[in-house]
């Protein structure tokens, strides 16, 4: 049990532990990112990363195989990549394709490489791969015109191939989900021929901005998406076997007391955690009949 107190003086928008649970990154409206070392019950501030020119909304650690690397995104429209080397932190890249607030970033499944997904209020999402020799041209997609609030990768999945010219019988299926200010949730799929992501499905259901989307990492053959919205509801979307229609299930009949802000699946996909404006973190799981029931609440 570790309790990091008063990490920032202003609003803290995100706090993420690295893969090994040794590094904690926090980001804030104070435009900084703080890196703490966590060991047992102790912690220690290692560095404060300065570079963003606006509130930093989210941070995300890359897979350790790439090194100790952190991505951050900010109201300033930029995505910055930071690296710790020999105990020292530095900014190693900057990804500035968006013209408005970048609201979420997420590293892709490590099998894809050092690939980052960013969603921005300019209505676009970008997928950019950071290669050894420098950044590759990012793929930029018009996702939700009014603005994209969140984007989340699907787990790496192998599917039946087309037995095309390359002779292989299997293919990679790369998808991600986005949630927008147009109240929509959209699913995107990589298209090899055009080297870009194309719209796979548009899911209607929310009546206000979608604030967060999360794709479950569950190993079961059913895909689960969770979308939370300012309309005070959470919708679970499911699809069988990577194709076909998405089935919509309201998490619960009644609305939540306040807006819902973040959604995240446990690593097994067994439990969904929601955080909302009522200052609660509620936990949810599916029951035998396929309805969602409370799995408890995270108490302060």
């Amino acid at each position, binding site marked *: *049990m*570790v*309790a*990091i107190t*008063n*990490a*920032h*003086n*202003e*609003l*803290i*928008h995100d*706090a*993420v*532990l690295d893969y*090994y*649970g*040794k590094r*904690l990154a*926090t980001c804030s*409206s104070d435009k900084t990112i703080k890196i703490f070392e966590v*060991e047992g019950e102790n912690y220690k501030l290692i560095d404060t990363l300065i570079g963003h020119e606006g509130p930093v909304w989210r941070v995300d650690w890359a897979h350790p195989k790439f090194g100790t690397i952190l991505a951050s995104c900010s109201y300033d429209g930029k995505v910055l990549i930071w690296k710790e080397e020999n105990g020292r932190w530095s900014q190693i890249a900057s990804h500035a394709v968006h013209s408005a607030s970048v609201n979420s970033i997420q590293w892709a499944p490590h*099998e894809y490489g050092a690939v980052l997904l960013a969603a921005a209020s300019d209505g676009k999402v970008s997928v950019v791969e950071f290669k050894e020799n420098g950044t590759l041209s990012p793929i930029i997609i018009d996702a939700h015109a009014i603005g994209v609030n969140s984007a989340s990768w699907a*787990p*790496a999945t*192998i*599917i039946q191939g087309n037995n095309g010219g390359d002779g292989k019988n299997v293919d990679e299926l790369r998808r991600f989900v986005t949630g927008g*200010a147009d109240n929509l949730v959209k699913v995107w799929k990589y298209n090899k021929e055009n080297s870009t992501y194309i719209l796979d499905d548009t899911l209607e259901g929310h009546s*206000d*901005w979608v604030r967060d989307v999360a794709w479950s990492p*569950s*190993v*079961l053959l*059913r895909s*689960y998406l969770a979308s939370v919205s*300012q309309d005070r509801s959470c919708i679970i979307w499911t699809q069988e076997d990577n194709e076909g229609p998405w089935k919509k299930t309201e998490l619960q009949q009644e609305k939540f007391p306040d*807006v819902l*802000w*973040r959604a*995240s*699946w*446990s*690593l097994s*996909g*067994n439990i969904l*955690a929601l*955080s*909302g*404006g009522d*200052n609660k*973190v509620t936990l949810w*799981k*599916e*029951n*035998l*009949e*396929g309805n969602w029931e409370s799995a408890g609440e*995270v*108490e*302060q």
Partner: protein
Amino acid sequence: HQPIDNQALLSRQFPIFHWTNSNKVLYGIPKNTGSNYGSGNSLECINIVNYESSIQPNLVLKSFVGPLINGKTRVKDLEAWLDNVIDDLSSKDPSKDLTVWRLLRLQLSAKTTLKDISSVLYDSTQLLAYLSQPLPNIELTPNAFKIDQASQMKVLSCLQTGNHNAALQLSLEKKDYAMALLLGSLAGKNKWSEVVQQYLSQEFTATAPEQNEWANLLSLIFQAFIGNSKMAMDKFYRNSADGHWAINNWKQIVAAVLMNVNAENDSTPSNTAKMPLVVTEFLLEFGIFLKQKSQDLAASIVFMIARIPLSLSPVMPDTMFTFDTIGKSSTIESCLWSEVYEFSFSSAPKFAGFPCILPQKMFHAYCLQEQGFISNASKYCDYLTNILKTQPKTDITVMNLTLSLTDLTTRVSDSNTGWLTKP
């Protein structure tokens, strides 16, 4: 509610919550200080705690004696675990439906009979009080028909000329169903079924609204045993009142059919596949009906009783419904049930398991690691590694599961090594 001020939201401190790769969670929950607006209200505390401090671990998952390996796992241990779970669950909530648990417990034993299973679905001893009540002594007044002598002679002549159909027709015209049934029994199985069918449809039609639905059950039992289950289901599909009754009373229905498998047929243990064919047919048809009406868990229980293997193939050639999970597959109970159900088939000759539950087993392993049951998670990783080796490498699901297993195995061994940093 007033329209949301999107911009203002960006100035609010929302709770933070993240899962972590080790089995800890990170959270920060702002204090409720009346007004949540305004800057300066930041998160006082970011906590990193063990999973179980924050979230109630699943004790059933923890105590499970899996992975269930044929020849290694002792059936007694599994039975004891099931008994404990059943005791626990029923003492915490006496109204909880424990049918699947009890059914699995029975199915592990070779001595279980269909009557035992019937009793799990529906405890018919509650009827004994009713049965002990004497019936009102109604005087018998003729209300049915027996053929007259002249017709009897005609029936005999028909039989002497080998004309069963004419003999039957005559009896049915005269509404002498006893004679018709006897004649049907002479004429072979198909004719017998036809006569029973006609008798039931004539004598058991629910004509008046107050007609007891339960007359349906009597008719259904007879139809099941003449192999007419498919036809018997028709009524449930076509008539919504009957359909609802069937859904609401499915346990009593199945229990009644099982209870009537007679001693000649019931000498074989019910965890083998030697159930009378007509009963299997009934269970399949009824299960499909329940599936059609979205009663998935009930359908699963019915298929379990019929000892249908878990598989991605349709349960019958002319249907699209499959039996690949018991209850929603993303629940821990469902995973445990699948594994126990699979294990109950261990003694079947050349049994190679149910490949379709591999994802559930993987999910099970993930949950173990997530909730901090690292040694069990490790056992499952070994177990799954061995299973995947036996599966065809070109199977897509196998490929995906192999990837998932690699990730999990790494995570598990990282947990075990504690805080060592990887280079």
